[in-house]
């Protein structure tokens, strides 16, 4: 996780700057270290690299021309939205161009009758819902970073939020993505209707981490705001009980609008920060939300309460007002920054696991806390099995950093072992690239590379992210031999 070193080639840099200045105004092409510094990392700040050049296009035409120029010069291009990504997806390439879409933040059209908004990629997630609010509509996916993260970044990561069990992920809420290929050619994936001819490339673009195309315009669906919502805050004396209670709610045929869990270390950290009124003695808290008409919500809350009681919750609080509902949620929504306050740094993992394996995985994490001497509170999208363990560490201590990485690696591998995935919503980026070698077979990884080539034959868009090279997997396999495992015995060792 050391700061990426850089062998700057001044001739190459001059060449890139010249080409970009022919397209963009001088203030939109940055190359001095003090100007490019703010772009050296995304939300995964343990990884840093200064980009050779930063380009700040204002419109689609500029994006297209910048890409054409880069592809002619064979310059790697890393797209960047708001830089809140947690897997290093927007980590710059030291010999390439960092393409910031931050200046493209216009809502181009909002049609309340058709219930769609057409927006530029740099528009913030929450800004869409704010613009739609006067019509009683909103954009459903609500990542906790929604005040900052961009819709382009959401598309590239297929981001979720606390309400995605019922309302879906980004892939379920975007109708159309217009973008540029690496050659600068305009392409449209999807359209303003509910489907498009040909392969569903819109689905393929979602979560593709800026490796297939650069999104320049996005049409999102807007949905009507539920008339009302209420949330149950249930306390449990045992983490596994809480996990089983979440499963029981779903087994009862209920799809809650939100179903979130926090363990005791997490609730303690957030309570100190936001004073949400959480029970600090509980081993785990469950937030279970219902939305709809007032009658519907009353029915559902009653059904949920009964299930939670049967599952061993020892205390309940049901929000009695919108203010109280927001207060109950405030702790969960502020979990990451709250943890950021009690530790110099935190490392957020993102595995998704079958819910029934939750107890086992949490016990495993507790064992890893001991093994590595690091604390790890947990927040959990309990409805869909997406777990966010947060390892607390100090990045200034290289030894802690090393332990953190090893800890995280073991948790990711555990997620795979229980039949889950290394990443539910934050992406692979640079962070989980080694574990991709474990989750997929060499043939599957080769298919991913072939998909990449189908869009980007020279591999210029966000290279070295998401899909590991054959070489990388061999190298990782070699390191793993020490742990007694050899995942790819058939590959040559380097």
């Amino acid at each position, binding site marked *: 996780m050391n700061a990426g070193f850089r062998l700057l080639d001044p001739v190459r840099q001059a060449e890139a700057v010249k080409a970009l200045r022919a397209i963009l105004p001088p203030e939109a092409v940055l190359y001095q270290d003090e100007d490019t510094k703010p772009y050296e990392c995304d939300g995964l700040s343990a990884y840093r690299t200064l980009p050779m050049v930063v380009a700040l296009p204002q419109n689609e035409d500029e994006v297209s021309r910048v890409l054409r120029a880069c592809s002619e010069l064979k310059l790697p291009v890393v797209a960047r939205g708001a830089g809140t990504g947690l897997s290093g997806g927007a980590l710059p390439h030291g010999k390439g161009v960092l393409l910031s879409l931050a200046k493209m933040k216009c809502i181009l059209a909002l049609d309340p009758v058709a219930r769609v908004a057409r927006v530029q990629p740099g528009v913030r997630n929450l800004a869409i819902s704010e613009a739609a609010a006067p019509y009683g509509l909103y954009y459903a996916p609500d990542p906790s970073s929604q005040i900052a993260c961009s819709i382009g970044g959401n598309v590239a990561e297929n981001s979720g939020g606390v309400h995605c069990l019922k309302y879906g992920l980004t892939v379920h809420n975007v109708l159309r993505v217009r973008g540029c290929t690496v050659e600068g050619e305009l392409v449209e994936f999807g359209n303003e209707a*509910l489907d498009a001819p040909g392969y*569903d490339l819109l689905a393929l673009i979602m979560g593709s981490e800026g490796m297939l195309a650069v999104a320049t315009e996005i049409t999102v669906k807007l949905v009507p705001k539920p008339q009302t919502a209420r949330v149950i805050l249930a306390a449990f004396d045992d983490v596994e009980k809480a996990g089983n209670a979440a499963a029981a709610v*779903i087994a009862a045929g209920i799809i809650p609008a939100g179903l979130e869990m926090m363990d005791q270390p997490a609730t303690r950290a957030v309570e100190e920060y936001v004073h949400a009124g959480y029970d600090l003695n509980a081993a785990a808290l469950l937030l279970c939300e219902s939305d*709809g008409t007032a009658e519907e919500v009353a029915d559902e809350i009653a059904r949920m309460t009964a299930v939670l009681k049967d599952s061993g919750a020892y205390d309940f609080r049901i929000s009695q007002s919108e203010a109280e509902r927001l207060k109950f949620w405030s702790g969960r929504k502020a979990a990451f920054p709250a943890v950021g306050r009690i530790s110099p740094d935190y490392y957020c993992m993102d595995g998704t696991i079958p819910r029934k394996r939750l107890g086992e995985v949490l016990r495993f994490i507790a064992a890893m806390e001991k093994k590595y001497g690091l604390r790890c509170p947990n927040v959990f999208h309990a409805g869909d099995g997406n777990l966010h363990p947060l390892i607390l560490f100090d990045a200034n201590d290289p030894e802690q950093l090393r332990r953190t990485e090893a800890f995280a690696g073991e948790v990711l591998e555990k997620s795979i072992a229980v039949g889950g995935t290394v990443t*539910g919503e934050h992406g692979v980026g640079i962070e989980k690239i080694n574990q991709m070698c474990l989750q997929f077979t060499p043939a*599957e990884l080769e298919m991913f590379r072939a998909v990449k080539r189908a869009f980007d034959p020279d591999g210029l868009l966000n290279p070295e992210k998401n899909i590991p090279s054959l070489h990388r997997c061999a190298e990782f396999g070699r390191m793993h031999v020490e742990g007694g495992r050899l995942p790819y015995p058939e590959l040559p060792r380097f």
Partner: protein
Amino acid sequence: MEQIVKRYAEQIRAAAADKRPLRLRGGGSKDFYGQSLEGELLDTRDYSGIVAYEPSELVITVRGGTPLAELEAALREQGQQLAFEPPHFGSGATVGGMVAAGLSGPRRQAAGAVRDFVLGVRMLDGRGEDLSFGGQVMKNVAGFDVSRPMAGSMGTLGLLLEVSLKVPPLPFAEATLKLELPQDKALATLNHWGGKPLPISACAWAGGELVLRLSGAPSAIEAARALIGGELVDADQAQAYWRGIREQTDPFFSTDKPLWRMSLPSVAPPLAFPGAQLIEWGGSLRWLACKADARSIREAAAQAGGHATLFRAADKSAGVFTPLAPALARIHRNLKQAFDPAGIFNRGRMYPDL
């Protein structure tokens, strides 16, 4: 079972070796759909059965050759469903064919399409490689999402061995209502209601009559009925009606004219073509039985922001699917090359060059 996979893989490798086309086929219920049927038959029905089902995880993994009816029965037993309400178009429909065709039924307007519920696939590619993408969990962004695009790929990218699907609970209650409305009013009303938090799960307009289905908590249905009005349809009749719309056994679909499937923004104004029309999905799906020439139909669809598919017709020379823009067509060819380098799977089923 793995013996069967081996046999499929051998058949694929042999066909690839001499670039012989293979026609992937389940029950053949959707033989009518798509451009052309070419090649030696590979019957997918041998590889059948449910692999894993965890109702409380909302996930089922099922083999491609499993009869769709068998899957739906297993789900119903646990109070769950395929929320996209796929058409069978015949008793032999299989799960693999359902996913490959990518067709969704009336509930699509509220729940989403097939692709929205695909969580993972296991497939054989054109080299006979056994590949798995996605998984059995609800959220997964590891690698590219190769599994969702299998929905609607018409079997041109690979043989779907297994699919994992998200299976939500059945609604607690349903009610179907009938209203008299001319087309323009019906479209305006559907779009207006679409912006309100109403539990509308399906709609069908034809010949001045709008039929609506409400699904959800009884209290929510009551509240919506009070707002919408209309006449309540008897439950059995309603069920038969929606089945008729989904399976296209409704009298509207018995026509000797070409049947066009127009996928449009819901706000697109009424189409000015002669012939009967049926509207679904809140205005986003319009069925048109019409002899007008393909060019003008496709142009009208494109102008409205959508596309037109020649869904059922004796003469398909106009092309079943809307042609792709050059950049998209190139990406399609490259992807086809990646999955099926010898070009053997369902050659010409989608486009002549895929």
